[in-house]
């Protein structure tokens, strides 16, 4: 039966290929859209989840969207004490964050300098480990923990363990122009990690909180990380803090970021999926048309089949097999094309979220510069292979039924 169907399709090559092409394109579009938007969503989710769902970031609201705003609330040790005293809060870690540059072997790399209690790094960044050395536990002012990309620049000399790191830090409270020079010792080189807590760890040099405070010449922090004892209590703690500060600070929780981003990517998926669905629908109408013409053209053949003793349902099955085969070929081709297409699209999506991320979260950006890796779940692949077959078969139903109902004598006379 399958061989007969194949021969029938092969007999009308151009038309069959065009029909299959319609299915292929429709299915490939849907597939690549779903794969890359769920890849985008998964990428964002994994970046956010690295942080741990139990960590809140407190920033003063001024510096967040309007960089130059004055008279903004400043976070200080008072706030740390307040936050530490809240129910369900285990710890509060104030931090300083500056942009800077590392001079290494003649080339200059942009970096983020974060001053924080270095011992807290493994708590704040899930699974963060040192590739070389160990993350210092004491507040040594000369200590530094260096991100992978800074230690291993694309060009220039890598920074070795216990080596001096020469930096220029700009935007510190006391520095005027040109930035403040800073020299620290690389106590640990981090393994590649990616983006978490709205910055790219790999581009970051972590220094001790004490060193950063000296550098800043101010008692005001860039932000405070709050560690909540239980993920379930995060919202409650967030609400308490928001109630206390009002609009003075902004409380960022992984959950809120996640849900808003997921709703955006979800809408994107629905919208793009709808476009694909329309193209598949058009392809389906194309199959109905092709099958109908094919049945009419083969009227005489149907007459022969009837004379030979094919039952109506066998004749119907014959045409439906042809339609289904069209769907199978279109589906497989669509899967391959969709796979290729999704990687192209992944790059585009990465480009667009990069700017979104930078705008919303200061340095780093959630999207990060890496391309979105499309996600082909088993369900998606099964769907991609079965749905076109189902559509094609449904499209073939009416023409096949018409064929099976033909009058044998009239069909045999047909020329």
């Amino acid at each position: 039966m399958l061989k007969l169907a194949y021969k029938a399709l092969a007999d009308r090559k151009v038309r069959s290929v065009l029909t299959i092409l319609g299915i292929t394109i429709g299915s490939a579009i849907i597939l690549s859209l779903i794969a890359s938007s769920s890849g985008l969503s998964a990428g964002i989710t994994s970046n956010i989840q690295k942080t741990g769902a139990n960590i809140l970031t407190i920033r003063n609201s001024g510096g967040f969207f309007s960089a130059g705003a004055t008279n903004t609330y400043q976070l200080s040790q008072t706030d740390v004490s307040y936050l530490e005293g809240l129910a369900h809060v285990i710890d509060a870690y104030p931090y300083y964050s500056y942009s800077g540059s590392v001079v290494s072997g003649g080339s200059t790399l942009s970096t983020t300098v974060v001053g924080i209690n270095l011992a807290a790094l493994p708590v704040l960044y899930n699974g963060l480990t040192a590739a070389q050395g160990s993350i210092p536990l004491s507040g040594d002012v000369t200590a530094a923990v260096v991100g992978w990309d800074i230690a291993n620049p694309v060009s220039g000399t890598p920074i070795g363990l216990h080596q001096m790191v020469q930096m220029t830090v700009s935007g510190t409270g006391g520095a005027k122009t040109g930035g403040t020079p800073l020299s620290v010792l690389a106590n640990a080189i981090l393994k590649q990690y990616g983006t978490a807590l709205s910055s790219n760890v790999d581009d970051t040099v972590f220094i001790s909180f004490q060193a950063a405070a000296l550098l800043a010449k101010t008692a005001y922090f860039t932000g405070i990380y709050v560690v909540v004892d239980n993920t379930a209590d995060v919202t409650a703690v967030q609400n308490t803090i928001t109630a206390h500060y009002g609009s003075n600070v902004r409380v960022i929780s992984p959950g809120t970021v996640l849900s808003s981003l997921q709703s955006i990517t979800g809408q994107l998926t629905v919208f793009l999926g709808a476009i694909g669905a329309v193209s598949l629908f058009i392809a389906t109408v194309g199959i109905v048309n092709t099958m109908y013409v094919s049945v009419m053209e083969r009227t005489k053949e149907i007459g022969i089949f009837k004379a030979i003793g094919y039952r109506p349902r066998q004749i119907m099955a014959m045409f439906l097999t042809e339609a289904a085969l069209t769907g199978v070929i279109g589906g497989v081709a669509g899967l391959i094309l969709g796979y290729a297409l999704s990687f192209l699209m992944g790059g585009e999506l990465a480009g667009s979220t990069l700017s979104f991320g930078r705008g919303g979260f200061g340095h780093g950006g959630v999207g990060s510069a890496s391309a979105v890796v499309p996600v082909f779940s088993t369900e998606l692949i099964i769907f991609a292979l079965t749905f076109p077959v189902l559509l094609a078969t449904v499209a073939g139903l009416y023409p096949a039924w018409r064929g099976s109902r033909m009058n044998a004598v009239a069909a045999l006379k047909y020329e």
Partner: protein
Amino acid sequence: MMNRGTNHPAVEVVNVTKTYRVGHTDYPALRGVSFKIEKGELASIIGPSGSGKSTVLNLIGALDPPTSGKIFVDGVNLRKLNEDQLALLRNRKIGFVYQSFNLIQRLTSIENVEMPLIARGTPEKIRRIRASHLLKMMGLGNKLNKKPTELSGGEQQRVAIARALVAEPAIVIADEPTGNLDSKTTMEILNLVTQMNRAKGITFVLVTHNMEVAEMTHRIISIRDGLVEKEQVLHRLDSFTNEAKAIVPPIPVQPQTREPAPYTSPVLITHR
């Protein structure tokens, strides 16, 4: 399948009428036709065009129902069968051979011959064996994988006959089987038909307007104006096959599976 041991005729037509309605006008194609064709006979239906002979063929071929009257094929009353059962009957008891061969152009000889067996779900291995055996018998052993366009008219008709025979039918209905062939090929095909008739005891019904062809058969049913005008039962005419044997080498005859139809003295039955 062959209903061996029972005594009914291969085809029995009892008082059959067929009226075609075009618009509001009725065209009576058959106006009360009765005849019998015995098992193992090689019969012919003759008549001028428009006489209703093709209608008779469609009716006994179970392709079209009569307006009134009864038709029995191998003892089965066609009126009692639904569409699926009619298809099954065509598949198991009837083989068709057409003037224009009616082969499926995109399929090879062997695939065309296999088609009736596919309909009944015969396993591929058995289909292949039976189809290739038949085609070899027809002298087409080297054309198994050729498509109809690569074959001559006579070869195509032999493929069509193989297709009609592959399901071991009780009767083979042939509508002007030599109408598109030259006289030499006509003799080849007729020789083949008589050999199959004798070797396998298969009943053949030839529809023809060629009197010479008709006279080579055992029974001639003449139809005119929708009625049986004349029915003749003739002697078996061996001379024709001997003549044809000079042209076509004889087909190896299989051991006879059935008694040939009994032939008595020539009878001339004239209706009305």
